[in-house]
């Protein structure tokens, strides 16, 4: 195991990695920007190094500053968390050049899976269905219109290098396609410095179901079952659960095996997620891979009892999985609600400012991952996630009851949050029946 690592991230995921390090007895150094100078989690690390001003480009996204911090703090590895540099293959290559271990997959797998066009080819080779769509980047508007005509509307435009919903557009006819193509191109170009777009059929009333994978250097590639993340708003996940209420045992098995085939085909090592769309007829299509730990990883930890972040460190340090597939059981039901500092009444505008009141829920079945405490200041420079509320109970009905009471206990002020919306979702008849799809939130609220 490493004796000392650097955490190149902030907020709740930095704290999550600090916790894993503490439990493994690994020293951790966390970098921070000036905006995070007073964040409490810094004091829980063994060292904290200021790397720049609030602007992510000058701090958390700045490769030279992070590598320099790793060098002066004498670490053996860097954990990138999620977001920022987590899926930047160039950063992984630089780590390799500097002889610093990157806690994640090799840059080759990242390149392969990070490019959506290449990932589709991989899926086809692995006999995993993909949504009908373009086999490569669409050259221009006219080509897009032609293809859309062929596969049928509605279609979705995605940035080849994208993630987290940015650069995505849905078009229901040629006119809206042409408009969407331009704005997606601009957004992709500025967000990812890569204007490549591709196009696929938009599956209406589909569920978003993803599979967690862990793989070691010997090729032992295991799945940790699925997560259902259908509850999204503008492609941003809001409520996640496992097991997925929309899967039969057979489809679940097929789906998880497909993810393992994909991971093996990509030579994948470490923790990763393979995302699928499940259509109305329970047919699933590979959508994309996330070559990093995901925000919603805790629900998988709860039902399997396996600490994913600890395993990320272990695998990166050369340890092999002692587990076999049949040891990984999906016990009980887990739900996560993302608590964002956003104002649902004001089109989910992010709220910044000081959190004066913060009374978290607790008790049996409740887990909270949050870097927030009374007096915490939300910086406008970063995302609005202030906590992940997770419950784990024997049955889905009990998990829903537990989440409802936990949301009820959770007090945050004066900033506005998604707590109230989550309560409404958990109470909604459709959610309780397990009959939701990716369009549910936008149709309903």
């Amino acid at each position: 195991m490493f004796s000392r690592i650097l955490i190149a991230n902030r907020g709740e995921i930095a704290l999550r990695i600090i916790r894993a390090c503490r439990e493994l007895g690994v020293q951790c150094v966390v970098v921070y920007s000036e905006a995070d100078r007073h964040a409490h989690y810094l004091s829980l690390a063994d060292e904290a190094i200021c790397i720049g001003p609030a602007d992510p480009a000058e701090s958390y996204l700045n490769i030279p500053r992070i590598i320099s911090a790793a060098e002066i703090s004498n670490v053996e590895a860097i954990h990138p968390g999620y977001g920022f540099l987590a899926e930047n293959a160039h950063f992984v290559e630089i780590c390799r050049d500097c002889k610093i271990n990157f806690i994640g997959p090799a840059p080759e797998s990242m390149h392969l899976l990070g490019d959506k066009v290449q990932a589709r080819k991989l899926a086809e080779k692995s006999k995993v269905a993909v949504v009908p769509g373009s086999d490569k980047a669409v050259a221009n508007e006219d080509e897009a219109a032609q293809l859309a005509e062929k596969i049928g509307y509605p279609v979705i435009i995605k940035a080849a290098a994208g993630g987290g919903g940015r650069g995505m557009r849905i078009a229901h006819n040629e006119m809206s396609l042409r408009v969407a193509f331009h704005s997606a191109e601009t957004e992709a170009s500025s967000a990812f410095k890569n204007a490549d777009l591709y196009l696929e059929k938009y599956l209406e009333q589909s569920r978003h179901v993803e599979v967690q994978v862990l793989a070691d250097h010997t090729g032992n590639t295991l799945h940790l079952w699925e997560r259902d993340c259908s509850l999204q708003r503008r492609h941003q996940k809001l409520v996640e659960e496992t097991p997925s209420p929309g899967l039969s045992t057979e489809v679940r098995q097929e789906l998880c095996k497909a993810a393992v085939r994909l991971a093996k085909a990509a030579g994948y090592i470490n923790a990763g997620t393979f995302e699928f769309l499940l259509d109305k007829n329970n047919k699933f299509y590979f959508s994309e891979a996330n070559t990093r730990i995901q925000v919603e990883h805790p629900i998988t930890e709860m039902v399997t009892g396996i600490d994913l972040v600890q395993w990320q460190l272990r695998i990166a340090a050369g340890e092999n999985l002692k587990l076999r597939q049949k040891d990984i059981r999906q016990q009980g039901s887990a739900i996560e609600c993302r608590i964002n500092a956003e104002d649902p009444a004001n089109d989910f505008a992010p709220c910044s400012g000081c959190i004066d009141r913060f009374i978290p829920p607790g008790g049996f079945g409740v887990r909270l991952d949050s870097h927030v405490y009374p007096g915490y200041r939300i910086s406008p420079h970063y995302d609005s996630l202030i906590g992940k509320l997770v419950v784990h109970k024997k049955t889905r009905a009990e998990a829903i009851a537990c989440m409802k009471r936990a949301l009820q206990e959770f007090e945050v002020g004066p900033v506005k949050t998604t707590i109230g919306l989550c309560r409404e979702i958990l109470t909604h008849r459709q959610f309780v029946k397990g009959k939701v799809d990716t369009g549910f939130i936008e149709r309903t609220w």
Partner: protein
Amino acid sequence: MELDKIKELVEMMKANDLSELEVVNGQTRIVLKRGPNQTAPQVIAMTPALTANGANPALRERLAAAGPESKDLPAEAAEDEKWARIVAPIVGTLYTAPSPNAEPFVETDSKVEEETVVCIIEAMKVMNEVKSGVRGTIKKILVENGSAVEYGQPLFLIEPD
């Protein structure tokens, strides 16, 4: 208690930026508080140090001491306040001289121009020259040769001309 007297106290609080004031005089007691978030009156440079009581007190001290807005000692603070600071523009390893056997770039009481190189910070094998940015006299060197510095860390105190 006359209203005039309270008014006067309030004016005084404002003028002196006091946040709280209490007067007890026999049977009379007056308490005044100002400002929503201030708990103590602002004196010199207030360092919002980490209030944590967590894993590593050493780190907390280091953070508190190293912050660009902090002071080594309250007693020195007033004096140091008069001087400008040269802070680290990047994170890395600081060298006070161009090579191991060379003379340092600057020493205490060195006169510097804006363009004078005062030290080098190595980051990712690149030597980055740090310039004074201010014309004046170096009054204090806050870091040692070969030490690691973080972004914004004060390196030199300088008395501007």
